[in-house]
């Protein structure tokens, strides 16, 4: 009876135990970057009444960011709905005034029906539509960046039509 070492499984063990030692580096890097990239959330209800000259820049940015209205979309669509035009105009106005010194990041999102590339692209096209509308209202295109989270950043996780509608959206984030 010949004795055969299970090469593939041994390789798997070596590879996986090897990477286990390295994991914390990868984990640490990614976690640190994520933490740094995450917007600083202060407590605006406490800070809001205080005069703006005592706010830090980050607090001011977070407060203005909250004033920007989310744009919602129809199922499987990336065109702006008529009832969203007012929100868009208000957003463009803020982007050109109070938020004029910040960069604007548009985050495209989708409902839960699929996590494949097409869904991410749909989220991105939603962000692109919003960007075009902002530019048409005078916002400098170079200030606006876009990203898509597909279905991976739901605002609501219930299994209802109202919930899915809340997830088909473009959120505004301000960057220094």
């Amino acid at each position: 009876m010949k004795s055969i070492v299970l090469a593939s499984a041994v390789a798997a063990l070596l590879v996986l135990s090897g990477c286990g030692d390295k994991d914390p580096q990868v984990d640490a890097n990614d976690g640190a970057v994520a933490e740094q990239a995450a917007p600083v959330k202060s407590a605006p209800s406490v800070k809001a009444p205080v005069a703006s000259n005592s706010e830090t820049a980050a607090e001011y940015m977070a407060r203005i960011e909250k004033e920007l209205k989310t744009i919602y979309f129809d199922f499987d669509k990336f065109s702006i709905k008529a009832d969203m035009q007012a929100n868009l105009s208000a957003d463009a106005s803020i982007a050109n005034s109070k938020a004029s010194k910040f960069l604007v990041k548009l985050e495209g999102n989708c409902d839960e029906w699929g996590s494949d590339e097409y869904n991410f692209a749909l989220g991105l096209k939603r962000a692109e539509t919003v960007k075009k509308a902002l530019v048409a209202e005078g916002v400098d295109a170079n200030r606006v960046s876009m990203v898509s989270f597909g279905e991976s950043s739901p605002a609501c996780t219930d299994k209802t039509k109202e919930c899915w509608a809340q997830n088909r959206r473009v959120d505004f984030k301000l960057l220094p």
Partner: protein
Amino acid sequence: MKIIISILLIMISIFANDATIDVIKKADTLPSIALEDASVSYDSTFKVKFFKSLVADLNVLSIFNVDRVQRNVNFDASSVLVENKDMNYVLRYKLSQDDSNSLSLEMKLISKDNVVFNKNYKVNSSDIYMFVSHTIAYDINNFMGESPVEWIKRKVIFSRMISPQRSELVVTDYTLTYQHVVVKGGFNLFPKWSNKEQSAFYYTSLNETKPTLKHIDLKTGKSKVIKSSDGMMICSDVNEDGSKLLFTMAPNGQPDVFIYDVKTQNTKKLTNYGGIDVSGQFMGSDSIIFVSDRLGYPNIFSLNINSGSVAQMVYYGKSNSACSVHGKYVVYKARESSDSFSNNTFNLHLVSMESDFIRRLTAVGVNEFPKFSIDGDAIIFVKNYQSQSSVGIIRLNHNKNYLFPLQFGKIQSIDW
């Protein structure tokens, strides 16, 4: 009479190898197999775990009726247990543990009281027992003269959503029994093996200002940035030798398919349509298939890289947003309802480029991320149904589907 028989023979020869045709095999025509456990080490919990793993692997082979009763025996007993006398095959195995915690296994396949096949296995740790089980199934499949099932031994990598904008990348076996988190923390998506050996992988990191494609070598643990792009930056496919990649990038908010040369680091744009072009997959060396909404809804198209000519590949389905290709076959995801107010169903379908047949491969739930195995023998996919994420395996030529549920979280994407 001769003419009828001739026609029948021709029909059989035409359809015998067409995977789009359903093959209904009666279970009672399959040979029976029972397992006899002769292990001398390990506690009963581990022995049961190993037994169940082996039973599951033999079932997935789809060539046996597998007896599910665990019986103990002496490895050197001259005949099979009396309860197994009527079995076509008896698989007797002995697990043993040595001083260094490695796991050894002796196995023999007995038919009619004769040992017809035997082999020994050894791994450095009992933690990866499932790879031994998968390899035994692989070897028995080969011994039985079936087409090879290389995929059964391969590793799977997937992205698991933990919470909004939080995910981790996990290396596992095809049954999700072994799980090792390789990238933890942050928002990391679309992992893709970068070589046949599965020693490194690409993935999309959304932790930077722009979506960034990274490469991690599992042997060294080294991470490096490949490229970043505004909007989207995804590695959709890796060619056979790992030298060329297909990207989905959106430098100006416009998602398109690009080809990337790993050696020269040159990127070339392949699609130019103003809507959505994503999910490029290599089809031979000169062509790709991809998902585009150029007809007003997502569908599957092919593109000749040299000539730039585009052709529609799929004519069934309202919304076909993911695909995989192997030889003449394309498997794709199709939405079977178009409703924003109720549950939607997405099923996988198989089409052949040489015929008009369409075979539906799944029935309920959201079935996505279909991916052919390297040998085309099986398709792996993700099923999300009633808040449960599972990995599915479809054995095309055996007309069988197997599901392996994920304990927690939701699978965002998968590769094997």
